[in-house]
């Protein structure tokens, strides 16, 4: 062994090291376009344009779904009883004041909305991305086992429960409340909601 070491040609070794380093750099550089190709394409990004929903036909207590960025966005017109339930369930919620959750600043309030009558929320569970199902009626009529159920949503995949403001109950797999997307009511026509755009003034008109 020691004989071989003595005979080691240090110039050749340096060349070997230099070639390896250069080759490694070239492979890394060549990997960049391959990794980059996995990111969303320009076309996929362009689909994220805002959508406008007409809520004139939505009766109190009804929900409609519009597609925004490939995701379902719910618009729920809440009755006074539904709004009252938000206060009643507060004790049972994991993040009642939406401290950890995603929403625009103007929707970080008790009703999680600009216009408290309308809940506009991304209908994708914050656990693993299923779309929760409506369990809007209070009581046991809809098969929700939570005692004193006031109405809300149940994720069919892993059982997370949400109240009528999309806030998650304690002890559920979902870590945070449902996301509230940027949204605004058309100042000229309050029956038109634009999803994906922040309101122009602080009142949310």
């Amino acid at each position: 062994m020691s004989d071989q070491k003595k005979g080691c040609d240090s110039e050749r070794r340096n060349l070997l090291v230099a070639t390896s380093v250069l080759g490694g750099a070239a492979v890394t550089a060549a990997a960049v376009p391959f990794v980059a190709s996995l990111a969303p394409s320009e076309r996929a990004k362009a689909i994220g344009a805002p959508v406008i929903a007409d809520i004139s036909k939505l009766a109190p207590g009804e929900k409609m779904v519009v597609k925004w960025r490939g995701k379902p966005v719910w618009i729920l017109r809440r009755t006074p009883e539904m709004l009252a339930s938000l206060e009643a369930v507060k004790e049972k919620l994991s993040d009642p004041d939406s401290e950890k959750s995603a929403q625009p600043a103007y929707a970080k309030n008790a009703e999680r909305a600009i216009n408290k009558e309308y809940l506009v929320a991304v209908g994708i569970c914050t656990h693993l991305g299923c779309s929760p199902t409506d369990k809007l009626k209070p009581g046991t009529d809809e098969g929700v086992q939570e005692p004193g159920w006031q109405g809300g949503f149940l994720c069919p995949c892993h059982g997370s429960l949400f109240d009528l403001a999309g806030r998650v109950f304690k002890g559920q797999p979902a870590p945070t409340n449902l996301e509230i997307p940027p949204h605004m009511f058309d100042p000229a026509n309050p029956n038109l909601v634009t999803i994906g755009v922040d309101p122009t003034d602080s009142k949310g008109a």
Partner: protein
Amino acid sequence: MAANSNFPKYQSDGTRLGNALEWFDARFPLTSLWKAHLSEYYAPKNFNFWYFFGSMAIVVLIIQFVTGIFLVMHYQPNANLTPAGLPIAFESVEYIMREVPGGWFIRYMHSTGASFFFIVIYLHMFRGLLYGSYRKPRELVWIFGVLIFLCLMAIAFMGYLLPWGQMSYWGAQVILSFFSAIPVVGDDISTYIRGDYVVAAATLNRFFALHVCAVPLALLGLVVAHILALHEVGSNNPDGVEIKKFKDENGIPLDGVPFHPQYTIGHDLPANVIMLMFFFAVLFFWPEGGGYFLEYNNFLPADPMATPEHLAPVWYFTAFYSMLRAMTWNFFWIDAKIWGVISMFAGVFILAFLPWLDRSPAKSIRYRGPIFKVLLAFFVVSFAMLCFLGTKGVEYHFFGYTPSKDSSPLSILISGAFHTKLWTIYYFLFFLTMPYWSKIDKCKPVPERVTFK
């Protein structure tokens, strides 16, 4: 004309076939490969039916490759809609089923093959557990096997997206969201895997590429490594003794028989014929497997706006899916979601550590003590329960019980949620406490040589 290879060991016997063989052998290790892996690979003579499943896995692998190649000739990985409003991918599967001559047969062979693959692999793995086939010196055989199992799960999962039905779409949506549980970089990783902000056309195309090309290549390589490693150390057997300890004057193990023809013709061939009888019985009379092999909701085209009311993975994933669902509390300020993901992956990876967790003096269950037998029986129960509960909704209760408003202690005891947690804990404790109980268990003396009537 005699071939002239200059290698005495390849010497032709003078016949035309012999000359041809000599020509090849001088250029490629044909005869020596045949001998090393088949005609002069000595396997223990006491194999029983548990040793069928390795060769069955190879037969099913070949079925999947051949049917897969033919399906690719007709299938279109395209999430755009046809003029009738159906996604093209979904429509092309229906086209294969209804309009391609023999298409239904090829497609059902592929879908039935997926379930059969997992049936034989689970039994093959259980054989390893019974007879300690992962123990020294077969650690690498076992680890290659665990990697094959991982590849299979990846292939099955990505293949399941291709029909672009409701279960395809939402199953992928859920599994890919796992990656978003990783702190800080999770959301970006999810986006890079999907190629979009939700499961979309980009996801379908890349899954197609991975399902038909990348992962099968990795799988093939691992199968070769698995078999090479096995043939280097030699097969284990139901007695868990090393047959290489006692050899005759030619260096052949006294308790060994040539793998070919003894096991190929006398053991694996009839076993595979019977397996294929079951296979085609399922294919012709029960191709949907009661909604477990092909889920009914997957006959609906993918709808990104609505999750199916009852979402469950295909049966072979349900045990690990249960481990995911078992985690509903936040420990150490880390979200339950991350714990669920960790426990699901840990459920697979913990298998790779078996060679070092097991410290029993005997390998085979035949000579192991009562502790192992009892704990293994409960392990089978735990795996079966986790499989079963993974197919059920979160509100499931045993005995068809529907709880009243206030949950009594009894209703908790018979709830699926409770049993999911209980058996997940058992599954992990079985492995984690193994170094202790496998050592103190009262084993019987292990014989020097295999027992065989």
